[in-house]
C-alpha cells in the first residue's frame, strides 16, 4: 500500500532546480526517513509532499488522490506536517497550542466539540505533556517544546504525519525520546510517518524505509540494512565510512573515517584493519 506518491515531480527554488522528475512511493503504515547531505532537497521534497510548496511540474498523490486538486482542509484531515523549528506566539500555553491541531475539523458552524476535546487530551497523553498543559510553550525546554508541537500534529488526527528534522537542536536523550514517541504511534496506531533526519544511526534504527537523495533524485531506497552501505554513504555524503551492526539493535551503524585523531599528540591511529580498508577504498576510488 502506498501512502504518498510523486509522479514526475520537479521542484525549483527560484531558478535553481532542486528535484528533477522524481517518481517516489512512500509505503503506508511505515516509518520512512529521508536522508541526504545538506541542501540536497530533502526538506524541500517533504514540504512539497505537504503542499507547502507548489511543484514546478508533476503530481503528488495522497492515497491515490492528487493533492493539487483536493481542498486544503480535506488534506489537513489526512496529512499533518510539522515544519522545521516552529515557534509559538509568546505566552501561548501547551493546551492552546495542541487545540490548534483541531483547526481543520472546525468551521463557522461547528465549533469546539467533545471529540475535539478527546483528541486533544489523547495527544497530550501520548506525548507525556498532560502535566505541562498549562505551561507557556516558550517557557519549556527544547525537548518538551518539540513534544508539544508533535502533540499538536497528533491532535489533527491524520493517518499520515510528516516531520521536518524533528530532532534538530535536541540533545541525545531528547532525540531518542521524540523518536520513541513517533515509533510508538506508528506501532500502536499504524500511522504513516515520514521524516527528515540528520543522524544516520537513529534513522537506521527507527526507519522501515530509507530514501537517500542525491543529485536531485533518489539514489537508493529500501530497508536500512539493504540501503545503508559504505557505497551509499560514499555516494550520498561523499565520505568513507564503515557500516557495522548496531550493538543493541543490529541495525546498520555508520562509523565515518576522518582525520580527527591522526597526527594529533597522544591520539591513536585507526586500527590497522581499517587503515587497510580505507587504503583499498582510496585505490578503487
Amino acid at each position, binding site marked *: 500500500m502506498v501512502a504518498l506518491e510523486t509522479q514526475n515531480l520537479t521542484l525549483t527554488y527560484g531558478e535553481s532546480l532542486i528535484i528533477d522528475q522524481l517518481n517516489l512511493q512512500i509505503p503506508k503504515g511505515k516509518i520512512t526517513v529521508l536522508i541526504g547531505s545538506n541542501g540536497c532537497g530533502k526538506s524541500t521534497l517533504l514540504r512539497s509532499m505537504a503542499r507547502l510548496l507548489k511543484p514546478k511540474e508533476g503530481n503528488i498523490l495522497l492515497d491515490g488522490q492528487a493533492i493539487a486538486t483536493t481542498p486544503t482542509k480535506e488534506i489537513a484531515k489526512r496529512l499533518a506536517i510539522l515544519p522545521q523549528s516552529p515557534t509559538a506566539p509568546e505566552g501561548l500555553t501547551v493546551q492552546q497550542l495542541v487545540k*490548534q491541531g483541531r*483547526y481543520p475539523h472546525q468551521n463557522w458552524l461547528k465549533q469546539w466539540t467533545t471529540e475535539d476535546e478527546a483528541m486533544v487530551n489523547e495527544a497530550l497523553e501520548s506525548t507525556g505533556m498532560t502535566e505541562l498543559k498549562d505551561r507557556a510553550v516558550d517557557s519549556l525546554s527544547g525537548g518538551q517544546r518539540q513534544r508539544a508541537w508533535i502533540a499538536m500534529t497528533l491532535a489533527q488526527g491524520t493517518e499520515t504525519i510528516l516531520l521536518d528534522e524533528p530532532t534538530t537542536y535536541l540533545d541525545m536523550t531528547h532525540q531518542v525520546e521524540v523518536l520513541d514517541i513517533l515509533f510508538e504511534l506508528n506501532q500502536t496506531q499504524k500511522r504513516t510517518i515520514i521524516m527528515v533526519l540528520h543522524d544516520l544511526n537513529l534513522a537506521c534504527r527507527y526507519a522501515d524505509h530509507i530514501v537517500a537523495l542525491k543529485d536531485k533524485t533518489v539514489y537508493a531506497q529500501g530497508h536500512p540494512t539493504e540501503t545503508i552501505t559504505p557505497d551509499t554513504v560514499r555516494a550520498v555524503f561523499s565520505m568513507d565510512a564503515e557500516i557495522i551492526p548496531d550493538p543493541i539493535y543490529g541495525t546498520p551503524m555508520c562509523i565515518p573515517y576522518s582525520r580527527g585523531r591522526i597526527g594529533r599528540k597522544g591520539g591513536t591511529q585507526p586500527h590497522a584493519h581499517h587503515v587497510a580498508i580505507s587504503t583499498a577504498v582510496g585505490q578503487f576510488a
Partner: protein
Amino acid sequence: MIKNLLGSTPLKLGGLFVCLVLLLAGLIGSVIFGVVDTSWHVAIDAYTQFDGSNEHIVIREVRVPRALIAGAVGASLAIAGALLQAMTRNPLADVGIFGINAGASFAIVFGAAVFAMNSLGEFTTLSFIGAALSGVLVYFLGALGREGITPLKLTLAGAAVTAMFSSFTHAILVTNEQALNDVLFWLAGSVAGRKLEMLTGVFPYMLLAWIVAFLMARPINTFMMGEDVAKGLGQRTVLVKALAGLLIVLLSACSVAVSGPIGFIGLVTPHLARYLIGSDTRWVLVYSGFLGAILLLFADILGRFIAMPGEVPIGVMTALMGAPFFIYVVRKGLVRA
C-alpha cells in the same frame, strides 16, 4: 512564564465590565470637562430641552462629537494595531509602517496646495483617499516576489512609501506657505473641532471592520503559529493575509481621515491588552478596542488641562505617553528576533 492578570474567563468578562465603566466615564468626562466645565445635567438638557444657549450649542456641536470621535478613532487604531502585530508577529509594529499616515498627509497637503482645499470636510475625503492608496501600495509592494507577503518586505515597503510621501509633502510645504498654514493643525492630529458628520461618514466602515476583525480572530490565532503550520492545518493563508491587510488599511484610513495622524495608540494598546489577558486574539481584539477608546479619551481630556487655557493636541499627548512605553518595551526585551 508570563502570568496574565486576567487568566480565567469570568475574570476577563469582569475586566470587560470595568472597561465599559471606564469608557462611559471617559465619554462623560470628555463632554463635561474643558475650558468651561459643565455638568452632567446640562449635557442631558442639551439634548432633551435644547434652549439654543451657548452652553448647549457647545455640548452638541463641539463636546459630544469630540468625545465620540476620540472613542471611535481610539478603538479603530488599537484594533488595527492589534491585527498588525498579530499578523506580522512583530510587537513593535504600528499602523505607521503601512505608510498610511504619510499617504494621508501628502494627499491633504497636495489638495491644499494644488486645489486650494481648506475645509475639514475636504480634508477627510482627501486623507481617506491618500491613506487607502498608500496602504494598497505598501501592500502590493510587500506582496511582490516569491514568498508573497512577509513581515520584512511589508516593513521595508512601508518605510520606502513613508519616505517617499514625506519628502513629497515637505517639498510642497517649503514652496507653499499658505498650504502650510492650512494643514499644520491637521498634521498634528486632533479630535477637536471636528463635526459629527465627519465621523458618521466613516463610522459604518469602522463598525464593519471591527466586526469582521472579531470574526477573523480564530483564523488569526492559527496564522500566528507560523505560516507553514497554518497552511499545514488547512488554512488558506493568502486569504487571511489579504483580509487582515484590508481591515488594517480600512481602520487606519478611516481614523486618519477624521482625526489626522495619531501615533502610539496602535502600538501601545495591544501590549496592554496582551499583558492583561494573554495571547488569544479574540480577547486581544476586544480589549484593544475598549482600551484604545479609553486611552484616547483620557489623553484628550488630559490635554485640555496641561496647558490651560490652551490645549495640547492629542497627537502630542499620545506621543508623550507612548514614547516612554516604547522604550520600556524595547528595554524589557519583549521583542523577539
